[in-house]
């Protein structure tokens, strides 16, 4: 982004404060353009012909430092790159690392379909949504265009996820494109040997393309500059992910160098998304558990440091779970308060005999507790106390979760225990056990202490509910 104050942005807006964008004023809209919570296109008036010049100029000024490349189509399309800062606390990182998992064209059909299904169906609940993985990378290990074409076809029939077509042989890539060009796959990869044919394919099918130059940044830049000249802009850089030793150290440094050149030094001709291939762990580790562990280690390193997309092999839960979690860790927006509205929520369809459970309004806490109870089909009232978005343990320690706050939550919600319950009882989180006496005194309710972890409420209820 070339601008940093709302005033600079404001100059380019219609300045009518018409409110069509949903903001009260153009100035407010300007500040949301800066923090990227709104897009220019959210302001309908500026799309009018008479503002065209300003619109184009502003688009240029607001464009992310690292180009954003889009692959795939429809709901599963992915955005790659798009970053503006070197450290997440400076703003936030945009476009979470795109995670792709491989299949190969020498797999049996059964194995291929099985893997693709696992990849597309994987999900892990976290803070109100499911963490998932994004793409399928089809590798040609046969180097046979017809085999590759058949494998790609099978993949497209099995999933709607976007694809990466992987081969250094342009004929193989062309064969793959015959059956999936309309799905906007990524071509992997153009090299200094095959660049002419691969660039033709990318131009013809308008697909993003990866430039691959293992360990050689001069060559990588040479390819990038040349592709740009040919008219290809949807470029992803692969400087090679060496799986171990000094070559891995150099790989790490190359990622840093590329990103620093793109963001800090504004070197436009290298400011493209970067991809990593942790899958190369499998070239040096024989034992599958070791290979998978090391692959996850590489994936974590390059999720933290500037990998915008990556290809992995292991789809074991002990690989996928940490991989989706480290991505969400790094790409969580540090600016947005992670809290939910306080109140007394119904989970399922509670009756007078259903428990009343107390928790806090930290989003991580709320969603963890809510999903633990709803997925176990427990009907209950979930009283979510306003602790300024602090979790149970920290808010007990910090004094945001108190008996008075708990009472206030029920009072504000107009929740009458006599009318709504037959038991006049609340359940406190195990970590808030020390509030028991206070809550009893302040509210006049019976207080039961639940387990420390809400994942165990279900088991706990078997012996502790209903209260005798």
């Amino acid at each position, binding site marked *: 982004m070339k601008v940093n104050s709302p005033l600079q942005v404001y100059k380019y807006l219609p300045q009518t404060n018409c409110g069509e964008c949903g903001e009260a004023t153009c100035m407010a809209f300007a500040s949301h353009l800066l923090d990227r919570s709104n897009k220019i296109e959210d302001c309908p008036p500026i799309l009018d012909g008479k503002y065209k010049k300003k619109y184009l100029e502003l688009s240029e000024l607001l464009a992310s430092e690292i180009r954003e490349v889009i692959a795939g189509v429809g709901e599963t399309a992915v955005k790659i790159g798009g970053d503006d800062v070197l*450290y*997440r*606390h400076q703003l936030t990182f945009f476009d979470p690392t795109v995670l792709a998992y491989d299949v190969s064209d020498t797999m049996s059909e059964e194995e291929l379909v099985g893997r693709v299904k696992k990849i597309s*169906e*994987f999900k*892990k*609940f976290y803070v109100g949504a*499911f963490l998932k993985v994004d793409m399928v990378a089809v590798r*040609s*290990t046969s180097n046979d265009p017809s085999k590759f074409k058949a494998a790609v076809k099978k993949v497209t029939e099995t999933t709607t996820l976007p694809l990466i077509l992987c081969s250094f042989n342009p004929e193989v890539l062309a064969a793959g494109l015959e059956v999936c060009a309309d799905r906007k796959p990524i071509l*992997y*990869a153009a090299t200094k040997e095959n660049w*002419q044919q691969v*660039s033709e394919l990318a*131009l013809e099918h308008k697909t993003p393309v990866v430039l691959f130059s*293992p*360990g050689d940044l*001069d060559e*990588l*830049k*040479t390819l*990038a500059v040349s592709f740009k*000249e040919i008219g290809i802009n949807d470029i992803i850089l692969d400087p*090679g992910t060496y*799986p*171990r*030793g*000094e*070559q*891995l*150290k150099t790989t790490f*440094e190359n990622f840093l*160098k*590329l990103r620093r*050149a793109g963001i800090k*030094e504004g070197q436009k001709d290298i400011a493209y998304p970067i991809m990593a*291939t942790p*899958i*190369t762990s*499998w*070239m*040096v580790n024989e034992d599958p558990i070791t290979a998978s*562990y*090391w692959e*996850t*280690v590489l994936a974590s390193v390059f999720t*933290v440091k500037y990998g915008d997309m990556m290809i992995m092999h292991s789809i074991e839960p*002990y690989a*996928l779970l*940490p991989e989706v*979690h*480290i991505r*969400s*860790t790094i790409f969580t927006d*540090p600016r947005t308060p992670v809290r939910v509205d306080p109140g007394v929520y119904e989970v399922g369809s509670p009756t007078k005999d259903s428990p009343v459970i107390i928790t806090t309004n930290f989003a991580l806490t709320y969603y963890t507790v809510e999903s*633990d109870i709803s*997925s*176990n089909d427990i009907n209950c009232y979930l009283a979510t106390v306003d602790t300024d978005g602090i979790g149970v343990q920290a808010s007990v320690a910090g004094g945001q979760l108190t008996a008075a706050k708990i009472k206030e939550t029920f009072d504000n919600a107009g929740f009458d225990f006599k009318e709504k319950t037959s038991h006049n009882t609340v359940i406190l989180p195990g970590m808030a056990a020390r509030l028991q006496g206070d809550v009893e005194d302040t509210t006049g309710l019976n207080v039961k202490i639940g387990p420390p972890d809400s*994942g165990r409420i*279900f088991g706990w209820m078997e012996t502790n509910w209903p209260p005798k």
Partner: protein
Amino acid sequence: MAKKMKINDVIELLKDADVEALEGVTFEGDIELEIDETAAGIDSLFAYTMGQETAKIGLYLLNLARSVGYPVDQIAGMPAQPLAPSVPKLSKLIESKFSVGTNDEWKTQIQEVTLGATSSDGGTRGHTITLGGEKALPYYFDAPMPNRNYVTIDVFDMPIGMAKAVKSNYEDVMEDPGEWAKKVVKEFNADLVTIHLISTDPLLNDTPAVEASKTVEEVLQAVDVPIVIGGSGNPEKDPLVLERAAEVAEGERCLLASASLNLDYERIAAAANKYGHVVLSWTQLEINAQKELNRKLMKQCGVDRDRIIVDPTTAALGYGLDYAYSNMERIRLAGLIGDEELNFPMSSGTTNAWGAREAWMVSSPLKEDSDWGPREYRGPIWEIVTGLTLALGGNDLFMMMHPGAVKVLKEITQTLFGSIKTDEIDLSNWVAEVVA
């Protein structure tokens, strides 16, 4: 006035126009056309404002060329009528050189802090370990990293509950802290040992400080690596426990864990000063609290700069690691650009990772989740990824528990540090060569 133009020039003019169909179209051969400049008015402003109009003009010009007999289609390599994009030819790559600068804002070095003392310094350790000293973010090319990361493995003064995957490694030594310490050094390659005096907790055994300090002596005898001494976390009792422990370990330059704002940190600082130890300055995910405590330790308690290590708190992957990571990275960056209240080596209680349910629960409590698979593989990788992320944020010392996790964390941090050499491998055909 008529002007002679080549088709390529026309295309060049049209490039700025909003004409998708013409993007990337180039032509070979010199097809010359005569256009009346004043009539057609093809300049960039025109092209800009006319949009679609210019596209039509382009087509018109091509048709014109075709109608007067120029072999447009052949030259352009296009099928008869439609103006489909064709592939431009770049006959060879445009050679370029890549370069990038180093960061000149990082002018302040992180303090070096040594743990352990050998006989020449009045201790009994076999060797010492030096942490810190960085002049750049970890593993960055701006300046070499002087000291590698180190791992200290936890030992407790009583058997405690721990995740099954961890416990299975220690069942034979849980009753004997000395043996436990030997095991982590000899078998699991610990660089240091942390002895946690948790039995002193009034809610557990309430072991008197004097008795607990015997365990410290035992551990010092059992192993000759530098050691870390931890209390129970009870803010009332820890100062007393750590004072006694510091006394029996006089001269060994141990790390006392911890001084924090919610206990009597002055007593811990005084014990470190009196008996020659290092203080772990622990705050909870709050950069200003960290500055405050470090300032108090230095100014108010007179602790020397080379006797302070900070623990800004470790939250597990999925349970606040985002806070912990950014907090550490901010502390390290502030230190590098000159904040002398923050430029200290950092330590992480990486074992907190085992608190994450993904690390220890048999299976997901949620029916909707995909299968979590066997937990004995999830736990160690949870500890590794938690530690590794913080390593990238600037953490120097890791307090860990699972031997497998220790091994992998050491391997990756030492690889990035540059001390692991292996044969080179060739990636140029990895797509076909990965067998899995």
